């Protein structure tokens, strides 16, 4: 009897540990980032870091302005949203409202496959197909542009956006659709006048999570956006993102140097951005559930 109680106690605590582990890891990661990054801000002011127009971490004297990197990330992300959101929402509507059951299964499996493709493979495919095509189509000196990155990242965000939007659309009470049809609305009218309104919080959450995925993506972006740390003016210019900067430079920097700490500072910025995005998504998801 006593043994049973002890086992019960141990298992309960173990499960509790597993439960809080994810939060613990997030806190630890943030603490580590903060610890490494904070010493950077003793040397360079926060405003100069965020607003500086030049990223020359190894020239003499070094310049640590990440404005071009932030703008690069934002530009690629913006492009990816423009590419993926309309497509994904339309696809989600097709899957949940229009497609016959067999088609639905095939499409869902396809979307899962798309999500499972490693980003380096997508980046590689983009490099050998999309990049030369863009170079030719727009008569550019190079096809490694923000636009190429946007298209590939859009593809990567699609599975997330589609599957969460589809859940949101499925969760819309059937009575809304019935009511609209009974008033003589066509299926299309029922969809865009009623169902989409009811599913909107979920669709916004899906979009936010898609954005989170895009902003954090590294490998594919590094391969196809050209990695030039200059402030971009159009989509057809090479850009460098926050993530690609960390990935590309971490291997070559001296441990403990200013350059090394600056990369952690970039990590903090990234962490804050994705945290805000996920948090917003969460708010919308909860609103949807009510």
């Amino acid at each position, binding site marked *: 009897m006593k043994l049973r109680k002890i086992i019960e106690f141990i298992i309960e605590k173990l499960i509790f540990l597993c439960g809080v582990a994810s939060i613990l890891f997030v806190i630890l990661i943030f603490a580590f980032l903060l610890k490494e990054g904070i010493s950077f801000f003793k040397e360079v002011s926060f405003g100069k870091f965020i607003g500086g127009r030049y990223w020359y971490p190894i020239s003499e004297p070094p310049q640590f302005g990440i404005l071009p990197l932030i703008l690069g990330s934002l530009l690629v992300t913006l492009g990816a949203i423009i590419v993926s959101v309309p497509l994904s929402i339309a696809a989600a509507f097709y899957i949940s409202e229009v497609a016959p059951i067999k088609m639905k299964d095939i499409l869902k499996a396809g979307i899962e496959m798309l999500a499972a493709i490693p980003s380096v493979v997508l980046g590689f495919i983009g490099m050998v197909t999309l990049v030369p095509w863009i170079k030719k189509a727009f008569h550019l000196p190079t096809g490694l542009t923000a636009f190429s990155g946007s298209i590939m990242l859009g593809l990567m965000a699609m599975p997330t956006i589609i599957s969460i939007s589809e859940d949101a659309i499925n969760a819309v009470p059937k009575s*809304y659709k019935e009511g609209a*049809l*009974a008033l*003589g609305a*066509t299926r299309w009218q029922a969809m865009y006048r009623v169902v989409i309104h009811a599913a909107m919080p979920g669709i916004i959450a899906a979009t936010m999570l898609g954005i989170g995925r895009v902003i954090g993506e590294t490998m594919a972006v590094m391969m196809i956006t050209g990695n030039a740390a200059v402030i971009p003016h159009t989509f057809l210019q090479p850009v460098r993102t926050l993530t690609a900067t960390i990935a590309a430079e971490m291997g070559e920097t001296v441990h403990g140097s200013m350059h090394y700490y600056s990369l952690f500072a970039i990590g903090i910025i990234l962490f804050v951005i994705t945290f805000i995005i996920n948090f917003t998504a969460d708010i919308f998801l909860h609103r949807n559930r009510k």
Partner: protein
Amino acid sequence: MAKILTKNLNLWYGTFQALINVNMAVQEKRITAIIGPSGCGKSTLLRVFNRMNDLIEGVRTKGKVEIDNQNILEGDFSELVQLRKKVGMVFQRPNPFPLSIYENIIFGLKVHHLAKKEEFDRIVERALESVLLWDDLKDKLHSNALRLSLEQRQRLCIARAIAVAPDIVLMDEPCSALDPQSTARIEELMRELKKDYTIIIVTHNMQQAARVSDDTGFMLLGELVEFDNTDKIFTRPQDKRTEDYITGRYG
């Protein structure tokens, strides 16, 4: 002359026959109740009149359903839309759209391009007045319809249905989600509305049928057992099964 006429109407869900040789004549500007135990096919019959059964896969219909002498079962897509404009429907659970009160009422107008923008205000006012909501809601027309009480929601659904000026209003157990007081008020409203509309109500509440309807049909296992004046059905039923049901021997 009959507003709605069904001739040898049969309906199957796959292999299950839900309606068996239904012959019925619904008169204009009267309230017709369809009663019967659960699963007898009364909702199915109601949904034939605006072809909501079309949404369910594997439904087959045979026979004729005429509304104003036109067989509604054969119409193509545009006729289906017209049919649903002519035959409005109110559901068991009030189902206002998650839009503003105003948007709910003009939904049908927008869908059918029935009126110009300038006329919307007037139509909204009239529709809400006819369901006695105008005084309560005139100051919050643009707030979300989901904030209303259940009874108000159901009234709003009725207003939404009559905003497109239908001939016929189908009501599928419109009071089953409401408390007795709200039910009494909705019934009062139905009596008001029958001056302008032909109303068919499905209910498993016999007292309700006795209170509001002019004609009553009793259904059992897909058959329309008896159809007559409500007074007659409830005082001198011709069929033994009707008598058993209304005296509460089953159902």
